[in-house]
């Protein structure tokens, strides 16, 4: 039974793996095609089934009108995502710690309500806020700037940081910070000297989620920028014309997906050690 079970298990895993990697392989194949290869039905293997062309890749770095110049949006995306993630993580971690250790009460509003207020920001579909955000950023002259996007992204990412870190801190015994206070720390000192140094796993997960959701957001980046501060997803979608250059688009997609895919390796490492344990509950 053990053997058949193993074979079946591996087969299932391989099927899922195939499902997971298929779109990437398809995009890889497409990125080496030209118009004829795209329009003549499904073709998979370069050289065998179609004559490969590198125009999809060269167009990303070429200058001139066909060059899509991937570099600037890439850097923009990286700055906005990193800055917003850092701010969200910082504020969110403090708030989550407060929510997990103290009880707040203003009128009928209690801790759970405050936590819900944070989380509920995620319930709102982005379209709801597009125009108000536009007007707000216009008022502070932050449209089409990295600063403006960071402001908006903080609103998007803060709930995630609060959610993950609240769960994480719940898994750190409160006796630990009490101990620190008994040993002479102020409450704030206890947090920075003792709790924070023991929160790496939670910070990694929360940070990772912030990066993922920040990097992948499309809508706000789309509405709130004009020409100066293009982000990656917007840049990619700008290739989605009626006559789409599928080859460039596929190559672009693969490049934009790579940095975060590398995060998967880091996450796996943490997970295997069991150190993400407390981060979700």
């Amino acid at each position: 039974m053990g053997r058949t079970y193993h074979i079946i298990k591996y087969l299932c895993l391989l099927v899922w793996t195939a499902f997971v990697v298929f779109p990437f392989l398809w995009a890889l194949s497409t990125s080496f095609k030209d118009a004829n290869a795209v329009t003549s039905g499904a073709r998979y293997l370069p050289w065998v089934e179609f004559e490969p062309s590198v125009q999809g890749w060269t167009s990303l770095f070429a200058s001139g009108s066909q060059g899509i110049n991937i570099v600037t949006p890439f850097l923009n995306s990286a700055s906005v995502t990193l800055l917003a993630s850092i701010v969200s993580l910082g504020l969110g971690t403090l708030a989550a710690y407060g929510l997990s250790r103290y009880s707040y009460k203003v009128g009928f509003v209690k801790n759970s309500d405050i936590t819900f207020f944070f989380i509920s920001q995620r319930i709102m579909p982005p379209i709801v806020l597009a125009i108000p955000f536009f007007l707000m950023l216009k008022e502070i002259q932050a449209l089409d700037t990295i600063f403006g996007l960071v402001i908006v992204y903080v609103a998007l990412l803060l709930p995630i940081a609060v959610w993950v870190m609240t769960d994480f801190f719940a898994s750190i015994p409160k006796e630990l910070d009490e101990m620190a206070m008994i040993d002479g720390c102020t409450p704030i000192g206890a947090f920075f000297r003792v709790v924070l140094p023991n929160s790496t796993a939670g910070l990694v997960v929360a940070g990772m989620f912030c990066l993922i959701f920040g990097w992948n957001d499309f809508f706000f980046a789309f509405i709130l920028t004009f020409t100066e501060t293009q982000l990656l997803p917007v840049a990619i979608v700008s290739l989605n014309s009626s006559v789409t250059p599928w080859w460039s688009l596929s190559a672009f997609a693969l490049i934009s997906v790579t940095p975060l895919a590398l995060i998967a390796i880091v996450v796996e490492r943490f997970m295997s050690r069991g150190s993400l344990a407390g981060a979700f509950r």
Partner: protein
Amino acid sequence: MLKPKHFFLLPALLTLAAIILFPLVFTVRVSFSSWDVYQAGLDFIGGRNYARLFEDTRFWESLLRLSGMSLITVTLQYVLGFALALAVWKKMRGGRIFRVLFLVPMMTTPVVMSVIWRTVFHESLGPANDLLSMVGIGPVPWLSSAAGAFISVVIVEVWQWTPFMFLLLLAGLVSLPREPYLAAAIDGASPARTFWQVTFPLMAPISIGAIIIRLIEASKIMDTVYVMTSGGPGTATETPSYYIYIRGLRDFQVGYSAALSLAYLVLMIITLTIIAKVLMRFLVGKET
């Protein structure tokens, strides 16, 4: 002096409030105006937008559709994510590679991957039908039939977000205490029994968290629909957020879409709260 408990909470709370307060209040105000493509301003038309909303069957149908869609996708994601997590939980050959690969889809940009998926599902030029025809199936009307489009969206959502469930559930499994398993092994419980009596109950809290978060995110489903089907064919894949987008930004009926948004928001908050409570009672058997 600032009390420590306020030092922790207030910066985030105030920041979020500062960012969100204006848009929220503004949205409420706009929902009582006739702001549209021609008339950009805050006149007051009372509850007309809300009255219109109650008769807007397209909106209510989209809500119904969304409940079906998110129920199906989240259930599939949960079951598949759990199954995958169980499969690679214990030490095994190639386990690392599997785990890394299984995580990758959630790291990718939905709007970009949806574009790729659209080419995959292209009915005459895409590989989906091509591969199926090799085993004698097809052609499947992926994006041109109501059922096909619905299934395509579900497939992409499952592809994209099963890793999220997988990650949370695997992290939970890895951290499970060992004692209950020893006890079950001593009792000679079968694997299935061990799962239902030990693993599943122990995983209940994390499961609820994961399901709720996924439900929240799944309700906003937008990028996939936007790219793959534009809500079609007909209105077969139109979700509330896409519908609000159509009304608000395509049609530029800003006032009406604000009313739609707020109605949607209230409904979602109520629904999700109820679901959270029910799950809590069902899986953990205790009150929230």
